[in-house]
């Protein structure tokens, strides 16, 4: 259903002709997403009716009002790195927030930054490091949108052990509701600044997102204040030498990476909790020999050699820890504690990773969050996550075991990468207070059979999340999932629907990745 010309003109009047398009070649680039369908010809989700580039909250508001007036749906997108960013059915326009890309405030004294939607994590990080601060870059990568990740998406990364989950790193928010009002949460709405996103009274952050974001289903968030954390490293990051694809960083002696592995899950679980409680880790992630080999290798060819090596050395679950310190004394203390924990839990530290070259590569990639594509895309072309619920570290371990069991047959079929099967990526949050784990399944989106397995494994995993009482999975949002999971989880989907109805009675905000209203 094409956009009526009067609607197009009304939108064009808001943003100017250069910033709106109905050209199919442009629209199709918003329809494509990895991991969508089971056959190559269906790599595409729905093509939007138009793509529009607003440049300010006023333009966003005006656009939303036009959409409400004419019954047109819209969906916000920034870097758009997920099927959640797309629309499932035709009839919506995509609102690309790329022009809104400023860092509005960097408050060193109160340790927060205020950003617009198209500020990427790597941009924010480059500026915060100059002030001795860092931010919680998520594992989708430093190229992703800070705002989308914090207010509308997921929010987890290797730094979460020391920086939490990004749902909890949100302070003030500016949000254009689906009906066009501009809602400013917390202290922003009261004209007091960006330091708080809650109140007066109840916090509307709880409506804006949950463990998962609303993924564009509840209007357009246009600004966010995010918490920042201490960075003990140099203000312009570690000096780098070399040329792509290998950058060797000069890592100071007070920063070090470890790959610790264990012979059994119990020791692994206990060690993880101890590391969290000891408050020694700047970065932490459960990794596997395959994931480590992918990160340090320059090509798939090289990976196949390195992996042969890592999988012989590492027999059992393991995690990566990065220690960062402001002084040699602090570093020595933290390393001593880590070694003590390993001794208590029969853990070992992989020598390969202590090699200087490996140190520099792994640390620079991890701190800058640049390795996502290497870790989960290069091998086979795409990946999916099963499991992925968040509560405790022990839950993560349960998900690793169940996820691996589920995955085994698909690996045996040759339809997923044989990465040792148990290739769970898991995290601690807030000194180990929370944990989560996703089972990584690497499949080829250009191979129909591999795609089918990706679909089947997701479906099977979702059933298991319910039958084994594992929580809401990583991919657990969106209309279809909410309909399926809701009845098993306090009928939350009914409350979500009420929220949608209250805040978006005209269903102007595309509900594909949130929830649809029922007649």
């Amino acid at each position, binding site marked *: 259903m094409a956009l009526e010309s009067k609607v197009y003109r009304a939108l064009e009047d808001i943003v100017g002709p250069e910033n709106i398009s109905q050209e199919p070649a442009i629209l199709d680039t918003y329809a494509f997403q990895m991991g969508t369908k089971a056959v190559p010809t269906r790599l595409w989700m729905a093509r939007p009716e138009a793509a529009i580039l607003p440049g300010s909250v006023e333009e966003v508001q005006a656009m939303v009002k036009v959409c409400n007036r004419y019954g047109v749906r819209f969906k916000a997108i920034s870097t758009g790195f997920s099927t959640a960013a797309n629309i499932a059915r035709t009839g919506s326009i995509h609102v690309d927030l790329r022009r809104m890309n400023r860092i509005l405030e960097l408050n060193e*004294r109160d340790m927060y930054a205020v950003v617009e939607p198209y500020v990427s994590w790597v941009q924010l990080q480059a500026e915060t490091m100059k002030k001795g601060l860092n931010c919680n870059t998520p594992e989708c990568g430093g190229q992703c949108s800070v705002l989308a990740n914090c207010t509308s998406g997921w929010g987890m990364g290797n730094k979460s052990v020391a920086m939490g989950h990004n749902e909890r790193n949100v302070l003030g928010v500016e949000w254009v509701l689906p009906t066009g009002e501009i809602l400013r949460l917390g202290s922003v709405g009261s004209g007091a600044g960006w*330091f708080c996103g809650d109140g007066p009274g109840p916090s509307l952050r709880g409506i804006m997102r949950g463990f998962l974001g609303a993924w564009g289903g509840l209007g357009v968030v246009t600004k966010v204040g995010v918490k920042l954390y201490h960075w003990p490293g140099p203000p312009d990051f570690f000096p780098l030498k070399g040329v792509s694809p290998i950058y060797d960083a000069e890592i100071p002696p007070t920063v070090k990476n470890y790959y610790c592995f264990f012979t059994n899950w119990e020791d692994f679980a206990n060690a993880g909790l101890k590391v969290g409680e000891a408050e020694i880790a700047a970065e932490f992630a459960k990794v596997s020999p395959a994931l480590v080999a992918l990160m340090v290798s320059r090509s798939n060819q090289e990976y196949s050699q390195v992996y042969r090596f890592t999988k012989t050395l590492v027999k059992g679950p393991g995690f990566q820890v990065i220690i960062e310190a402001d002084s040699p004394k602090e570093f020595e203390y933290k390393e001593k504690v880590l070694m003590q924990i390993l001794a208590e839990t029969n853990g070992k530290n992989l020598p390969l990773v202590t090699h200087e070259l490996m140190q520099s590569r792994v640390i620079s990639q991890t701190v800058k969050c640049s390795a996502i594509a290497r870790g989960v895309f290069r091998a086979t072309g795409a990946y999916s996550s099963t499991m992925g619920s968040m509560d405790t570290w022990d839950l993560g371990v349960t998900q690793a075991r169940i996820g691996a069991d589920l995955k085994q047959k698909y690996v045996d079929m040759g339809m997923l990468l044989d990465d040792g099967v148990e290739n769970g990526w898991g995290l601690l949050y807030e000194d180990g*207070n929370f944990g989560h784990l996703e089972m990584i399944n690497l499949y080829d989106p250009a191979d129909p059979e591999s795609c089918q397995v990706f679909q089947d494994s997701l479906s099977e995993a979702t059933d298991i999340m319910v039958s084994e009482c594992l929580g809401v999975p990583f991919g657990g949002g969106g209309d279809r999932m909410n309909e399926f999971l809701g009845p098993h989880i306090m009928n939350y989907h009914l409350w979500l629907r009420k929220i949608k109805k209250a805040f978006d009675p005209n269903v102007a905000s595309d509900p594909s990745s949130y929830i649809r209203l029922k007649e």
Partner: protein
Amino acid sequence: MAEKEDLVEIVGSEGVSDAPEILAEYSKDKSFVPPIEPRCVVKPKTTEEVQRIIKWANDTLTPLIPVSSGSPRFRGDTVPTAGGAAVLDLSGMKKILWIDRRNRVAMIEPGVTFGELRPEVEKEGLRLLMPLLPRRSKSVLASALEREPIIMPRYHWDIGDPMLCTEVVFGTGDLFRTGAAAGPGTLEEQRKSGQAQKNPAGPSQASLHRVIQGSQGTMGCVTWITLKTQLLPKLQKPFLVGSHRLDSLTELSHWLIRLRIADECLMLNNSNLAAIMAKKWPEEYRRLRDNLPSWILFFCQAGYEYFPEERLAYEEEYMSDIAQRIGVSPVEVLSGVSAYELLAILQAPSEEPYWKLRHKGSCHDIFFLTGRDRLPELIEVMHNLASRYSYPVADMGIYIQPVVQGTSWHCEFNLFFDPDDLKEVETVRTLSVDAVNALMTEGAFFSRPYGPWADIAYRRDGETTAALRKVKGIFDPNNIMNPGKLCF
């Protein structure tokens, strides 16, 4: 009363009271909110009873006022705003449902107080993330629901901490569990898979615990929460730092939090610290107050399971370097006040009488959030207003608490007054209203607007008001839950 019989049927006759002396107790508190008598007080013991009561309240359109803490209460949020209300007193639900050392979590019912919970968690090697000296009758759950700031800002990751998951009966009468507790599965089934009802976010794409917190009981009634706890340290070293310059202390606080080298970290003015420490009134209080510097920072460094002395050693070194750079001197004893003694006091609820009542018998608090740079100006605004109203500035207590890991600052003015002196009462009452107006105009953010502050706060933010009313319409469409509070 026919409705009383309905309630008796739910909770038993011992659970319902309409005795005048009981009703009088719940008709007012120590705030300036006008007293209104409820029609009855009902005390459920189980979630099921709560749910039935709320359904009854919907059927009869009876306002319900949830209360979890014992008296004296201070904020006005538990005083009915309309006649004919029933007080839903949950203070009898006193079970400590679960304490789990491995996951550093406790699950409690509304009536559990800090004094009751603390020894139980300590048996497991854990400690509570406490607010500043809660009164003995204060409900832990209520404190968490109110988003009271905790005195260990390094563990205050989110404004909702230490509250995690909740079980709630919404104003509709529907039962819900928030966060990971929502499911799938029963709590036991979840624990079998390794869960501990910790993740507060969700389920899925909304975090309803956030609209319950700070709602003053207007969205529903919480019947249990899980609570983050912290490990008990093996070694502790507390310090006091005195200064006439608040900014020196806030600067040191910033670094203590930023480098994660202190647990407890808070600032008090001389009046408040004297009020907390004094055992003899009024002489000791006055002596302490007059000898102490204007501002005092209290913080405590700690070592835990692994090599606690070494941890303390490097943390203390950092602290000393920073203190020296700023030009302040952390000490163990400041003007006769022992940091160790203060630490012991702060780790427990307030001794009786409640510390805020010791000076003059009553106290009215004004508190808000702000950025660090705004603190001096806002304090000056308050001082000027106090002078204008002839409130003795020297008597006013001030408590500054960095919150959410130092990204904002809770600023609290404690106006002590004699409740039997009508002039003092009137002074504090009018001063407080003007103060809230003036402070808000100058950028103070009243994130927890009690009583008359609510009108002023919501007038400043029409969009939030409209949005909150939509939320209220979802969870309490008949507006039976504490009507008249906030913007409802």
